[in-house]
């Protein structure tokens, strides 16, 4: 794909994900409420929340410095950049000339790094707990993500995301390969952990992993952060879909197929949110120190995938 149209398509993707992110966080809230036999807010509630926060005055603790103030913009900007690189609408990555999947994984590190730094900067003890846990969770999840993506990249011959997506769409890389489905299973669980859902994170609790560093935020900054974390959730799902379930994406970047791809992608994400909601609401919160049991199993799955790759292809 040539650079010019790639940039525009990338911007379209970023804008698309930015606009639908509150929709899906709202959907998650509704599903959760329904499973608790509550009515729950309307599906548009998160848009209203963000709009309301945007117009409020901001309160900043006296200890905080510019790191605290800059963090929301960096986090939203970084997640949008990921949204531009991951193939969401077309088979090819819109920004293949900018980076590959290793860059994407390290862009997620920026989000973590900045969120934790901002948490420590606020001076609040709760934010510190959240910052520490955020980084610890990264330590547990990132190696597995890299291992799984590495195996899939080796199977498809390139660490470039568009190449992998194209191979899966073509059927060169398919689920009858044990390496591939084991990797898919492992990555699905890793995605679930990264989404910050219940057994690993309690998104509504102030001292928890994701909300922790947000403790001291208010007004427009809080709105941007909530939005940014919503986008992050969606981008994690998008990465999973791009690598392991890219069916329905447009082969050419023409308007018709792209619109169809949007619809298909929304349907796939809705399905994932439904599954996630069921899983989330059927489990109780894990102790942080229990997470290694799950990541250990994911690691085991990816090791099986690796052994099969190393010895049979």
């Amino acid at each position, binding site marked *: 794909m040539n650079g010019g149209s790639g940039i525009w398509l990338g911007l379209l993707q970023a804008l698309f994900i930015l606009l639908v992110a509150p929709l899906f966080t709202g959907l998650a809230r509704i599903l959760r409420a329904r499973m608790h036999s509550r009515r729950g807010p309307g599906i548009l509630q998160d848009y209203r929340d963000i709009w309301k926060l945007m117009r409020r005055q901001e309160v900043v603790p006296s200890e905080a410095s510019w790191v605290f103030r800059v963090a929301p913009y960096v986090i939203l900007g970084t997640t949008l950049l990921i949204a531009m690189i991951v193939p969401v609408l077309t088979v090819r990555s819109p920004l293949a000339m900018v980076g590959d999947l290793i860059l994407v994984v390290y862009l997620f590190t920026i989000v973590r790094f900045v969120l934790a730094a901002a948490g420590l900067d606020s001076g609040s003890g709760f934010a510190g707990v959240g910052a520490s846990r955020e980084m610890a969770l990264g330590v547990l999840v990132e190696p597995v993500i890299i291992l799984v993506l590495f195996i899939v990249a080796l199977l498809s011959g390139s660490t470039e995301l568009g190449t992998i997506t194209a191979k899966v769409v073509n059927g060169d890389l398919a689920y*009858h*390969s*044990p390496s591939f*489905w*084991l990797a898919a*299973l492992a990555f699905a669980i890793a995605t679930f952990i990264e989404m910050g859902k219940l057994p690993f994170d309690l998104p509504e609790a102030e001292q928890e992993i994701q909300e922790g560093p947000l403790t001291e935020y208010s007004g427009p900054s809080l709105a941007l952060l909530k939005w940014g974390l919503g986008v992050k959730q969606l981008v994690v799902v998008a990465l999973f879909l791009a690598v392991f379930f890219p069916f329905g994406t447009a082969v050419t970047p023409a308007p018709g197929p792209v619109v169809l791809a949007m619809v298909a992608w929304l349907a796939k994400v809705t399905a994932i949110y439904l599954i996630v909601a069921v899983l989330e609401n059927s489990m109780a919160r894990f102790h942080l120190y229990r997470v*290694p*049991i799950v*990541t*250990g*199993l994911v*690691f*085991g*799955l990816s*090791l*099986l995938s*690796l*052994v*099969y790759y*190393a*010895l*049979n292809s």
Partner: protein
Amino acid sequence: MPASGMIPSMALLLLVTSLLVVEARRLRTAAYMYAIQSLVLASIFLALAIVMDAEPLYIWSLTALLTKVILVPYLLLRTVRFIGEEEIEGTFSTPVSTTIAALLVALSFGVVGVVQEYAILQVKVALAVSIAHFLLGLLAILTQKHALKQILGFCLMENGSHLTLALTAYNAPETVEMGILTDAVFAVVIMTILARRLHKGFGTLNSDRYTLLKG
């Protein structure tokens, strides 16, 4: 998809379920996982029967379904209900034991690579998995402290050897197969009875606490 293409995937699914059996925290979950695993085993027998055109394997598949998917898990679940859930961690943490498991799998693949008799690649994979599975069961017996988990480890070992047998000696008379199955079932029956007695005597199934047995 032809049945031969399914065999490696199903064999690896067998390994995945055995990881789940070993790492499941609750005993009930572990027993259910074992039932799922036996279901996979029965389907592998079915697929092998089609691929290798071996009629005895159809019967193997059916008997495995009856005994291992239904009877053995039922016995185990009853025992769990009798003694109650007791959470005892294994010797190794999950990442360590999964790493060891993967190493065992790699080892078995290496061993099978030497065996030249099997022309069909998929069958080779299944053979490697069966050996790995046997070793995994053994590992579970050694590293798990809960007596019921050790019984499950025995069942895993048994599943592994069952698969090895199906791959290498499926033409043996049916009596052999019957012998294995009754052996497996009765072993589980006896061991669950022993587990109940132990539970009565010690109030726990943590084998590390059985120090009174020392001579």
